[in-house]
């Protein structure tokens, strides 16, 4: 079911884009990531709106007073919070729904990239079973070369004048993940949320940086492209939010 609904459409779309773009798998990953981002844009907007509304609530006097008044009675605090959410028409689950729907898409996108690269016999055999009849088998195996990278191998830039190789993509993934986390999770007045944001800003770049360093660079390219688009989305959303209402 996972293969039929998520993986097969993604792999065959990726291969279609690859064929249209002159069999350049690097550009295929970037364009495919952009398309998936575009398709899931309503979910992202919903999730970001939800975060903003929550932040506005957390910044309100009523919410702060409530926190102070019931700081020793968690049960009562929870009840009052829910009452407030209901009054302002905020559904605490609305942000999660978008995130939950996006989760399998992110996993599927990662798997589609890795499986289409098919660096081992088992992966190539499995790929042969995931192709639609109209997908040309002559596209297989995909050309893994993109710029200085072999997209099926971890990326390192070797320069003649340096005694060591530089993991350029890993560095870019760490920086862009940090920037994206900063942009898409604006400062919250709530102390607990602040701690979570701080930790997210620390752990997420490290985790994705580790993946980018140790796994196929096709995946790192996807992270980088996805982060850049996320930063762009976050910037636009922030500008819209800051624009004075006419």
């Amino acid at each position: 079911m996972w293969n039929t609904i998520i993986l097969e459409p993604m792999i065959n779309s990726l291969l279609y884009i690859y064929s249209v773009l002159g069999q350049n798998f690097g550009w295929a990953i970037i364009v495919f990531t952009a398309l998936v981002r575009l398709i899931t844009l309503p979910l992202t907007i919903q999730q970001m709106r939800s975060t903003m509304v929550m932040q506005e609530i957390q910044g309100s006097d009523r919410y702060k007073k409530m926190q102070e008044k019931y700081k020793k009675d968690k049960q009562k605090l929870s009840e009052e919070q829910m009452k407030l959410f209901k009054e302002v028409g905020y559904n605490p689950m609305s942000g999660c729904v978008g995130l939950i729907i996006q989760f399998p898409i992110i996993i599927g996108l990662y798997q589609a990239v890795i499986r289409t690269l098919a660096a081992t016999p088992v992966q190539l055999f499995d790929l042969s079973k995931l192709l639609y009849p109209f997908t040309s088998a002559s596209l297989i195996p995909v050309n893994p070369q993109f710029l200085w990278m072999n997209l099926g191998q971890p990326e390192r830039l070797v320069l003649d004048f340096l005694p060591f190789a530089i993991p350029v993509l890993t560095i870019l993934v760490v920086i862009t993940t940090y920037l994206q986390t900063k942009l898409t999770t604006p400062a919250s007045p709530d102390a607990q949320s602040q701690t979570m944001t701080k930790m997210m800003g620390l752990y997420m770049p490290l985790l994705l940086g580790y993946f980018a360093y140790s796994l196929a660079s096709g995946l790192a390219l996807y992270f980088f492209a996805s982060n850049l688009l996320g930063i762009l989305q976050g910037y636009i959303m922030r500008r819209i939010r800051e624009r004075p209402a006419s």
Partner: protein
Amino acid sequence: MIKATFPLKKLFLPIILGLFALLLVGCSGASIMAASSWPGLTVNEDIAYLAYNQHVRAVDLSSGREVWSYPPEADDKITFYAPPAIGPDGTVVIGGYNNEVLALTLNDSFVNVLWSFAEATDRIIGGPIIVDDMVLVPSADGRLYALDLETGKPVWDKPFEAQHALWSSPVILDDRIYLTSLDHHIYALDLETGREVWQANLSSTISDSPSLTEELVFAGTFEGILFALNNSHGEIVWQFKADGAIWGSPAILNGVAFFADVSGTAYALDIASGKELWREQLPGSSAASPTILDDRVFFISETGEVTAFLLENGDPVWPSSASMEGRLLADSIPTDHGLLVPAMDSECVVFSVDPSTGAARCIIEPK
């Protein structure tokens, strides 16, 4: 009441991210912990040589005893999947996913490395073969290396170079090497020099070795076409469209080619005309080449079954397919101890199937 001071809240996020990481990597087909390929098996004089994961092992098929294992201690960075090649003096040539080729000899129960060759720049996936005093090693870097069996030194001026990876063993007929590549081509090379005699573009990836007769060379493609080419010049004599992608090379006997495809269909074709003689449905996809033994042909299904048909008309030999645990993707080998069937993702690495009854038992367990 003692209040817990352990910062559980602080650990919440790392735990969630860790789970996400596990899901991202672990649930994919590209798990970094899983075997990257199926076991490579070779049998020589009652000894099975098995390359799988971090070891190459020699197992006495009569006693089931492990004769030796290399390396003595597993190394996470070195894995072996290419079927080993055995020289006339018992030298075992193995290729690893660390790009290295090793020649091993056995002295007083100790495995010695006779030589090593480390010039390949990508993994050794297809099995090396030994021709007289020369070893031919296909590499995923697209080159075919010819090495001296005694010294490991290159024999040709330069290795033959295809446009993409070589994942299958070359095949020899007279003074020619026949070789397939992921670059969609089949090549005929001069055995002495490694120079190209002819090449043919089959428009789609060829994963397994070609099969040969005195006049024809056969190769199945990812596009699901079995090609028969003239082996002197490489012209296409006929082609046959199967239902699915073809992975395993055809088995040929008495003018008939037997093969199966990824859709799980087994075929028998007349090799003179390419005309279909019979076809039968298998329980699952097939990646392995069929094996012919006496009057029957054995097909391996990925889903864990071995199915036997009569060569003549495709009638099933057993009431039902022999069933085993795991994924069966590698070729089977007929021996005095039954048909040996390598398995991956299984509690057993090699099964033995009785060709008469289809009864299966585990003959080599994982290390």
